[in-house]
């Protein structure tokens, strides 16, 4: 296996699978999922402390070597995303931020214009910005110009497990955008993560499919292997398809040939 170093946001990563911390039956599973996936990047959200129900702190379960990627979930405008980003960085967790600006509550689809506005301001403030977007070429180009560290197009709406429904559009981003493409949201099965990686995506972010499976540790391992398999297949460069059969075995030297001759 040749060296396949993944550099992003000023970090070198060994794994191209990013994981989340939402929806686990118990946050105490998180360390084992970190181990089974080998992931180096993990997302978190920022929320008000609930004084009536102060629960377990998710940060206690995140191994210290992991790169935190706080998200701006809950933001409806670029200003709200910027505010959350600044608060997240003030925790001392580093300068990575996943921008999510969403006003649509049914499909949780991101607002590309507000996302680009927030990205432009936050990159100037020294953030490594990872914007979550619809796979739209023009929004992606705006984000390149705004200094984003990567583009995170959705495969399907958040939490739906519907797979890479936006496949053709993601292929266009992979082809046209000179930044890492991290497929985020909608990936429901390891085979779908593999499919994205085979097509040349640089990484996948998977939360729901791992966290809500019956065995998150094992599902995490399956995703890690699928992401690596897809990556290897991409690097190995598959040949094209053919409408007709093309024999794999030689078409000469058959045992049946000229058997009657002495």
């Amino acid at each position, binding site marked *: 296996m040749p060296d396949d170093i993944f550099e992003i946001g000023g970090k070198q990563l060994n794994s191209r699978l990013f994981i*989340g*911390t*939402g*929806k*686990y039956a118990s*946050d105490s599973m998180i360390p084992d999922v970190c181990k089974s996936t080998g992931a180096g990047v993990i*997302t*978190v*959200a*920022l*929320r*008000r*402390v609930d*004084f009536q129900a*102060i629960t377990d*702190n*998710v*940060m206690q379960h995140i191994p210290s070597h992991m790169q*935190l990627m*706080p*998200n701006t*979930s809950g933001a409806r405008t670029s200003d709200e995303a910027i*505010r959350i980003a*600044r*608060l*997240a960085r*003030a*925790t001392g*967790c580093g300068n990575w931020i996943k921008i999510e600006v969403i006003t649509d509550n049914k499909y949780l689809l991101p607002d590309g214009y507000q996302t680009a506005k927030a990205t432009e301001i936050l990159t100037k403030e020294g953030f490594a910005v990872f914007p979550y977007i619809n796979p739209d070429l023009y929004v992606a180009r705006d984000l390149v110009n705004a200094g984003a560290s990567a583009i995170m197009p959705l495969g399907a709406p*958040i*939490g739906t497990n519907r797979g890479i429904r936006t496949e053709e559009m993601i292929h266009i981003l992979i082809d046209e955008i000179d930044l890492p493409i991290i497929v985020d*949201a909608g990936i429901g099965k390891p085979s779908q993560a593999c499919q994205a990686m085979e097509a040349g995506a640089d990484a996948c*972010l998977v*939360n*729901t499919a791992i966290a809500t499976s019956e065995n998150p540790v094992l599902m995490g391992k399956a995703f890690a292997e699928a992401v690596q398999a897809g990556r290897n297949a991409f690097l190995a460069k598959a040949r094209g398809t053919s409408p007709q059969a093309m024999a794999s075995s030689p078409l000469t030297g058959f045992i049946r040939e000229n058997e009657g001759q002495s």
Partner: protein
Amino acid sequence: MNIIINGQKLEFKKEMSIKMFLDTKNISPESVVVELNQSIIPSENYHTTWLTSNDKLEILRFVGGG
């Protein structure tokens, strides 16, 4: 004095710093990030930052998310 903390109006009889408020809720200062009237307060200033009437205080922390 009335202070709005995480969107809820609370009444305090005595002067109170951010540190004192966190102590009343058993919240360790390093587990949260605090914004007072939309300005982020560094944790080393929690004990010297006194709340005044009509302040808006936000106390946030990381939770699970994707």
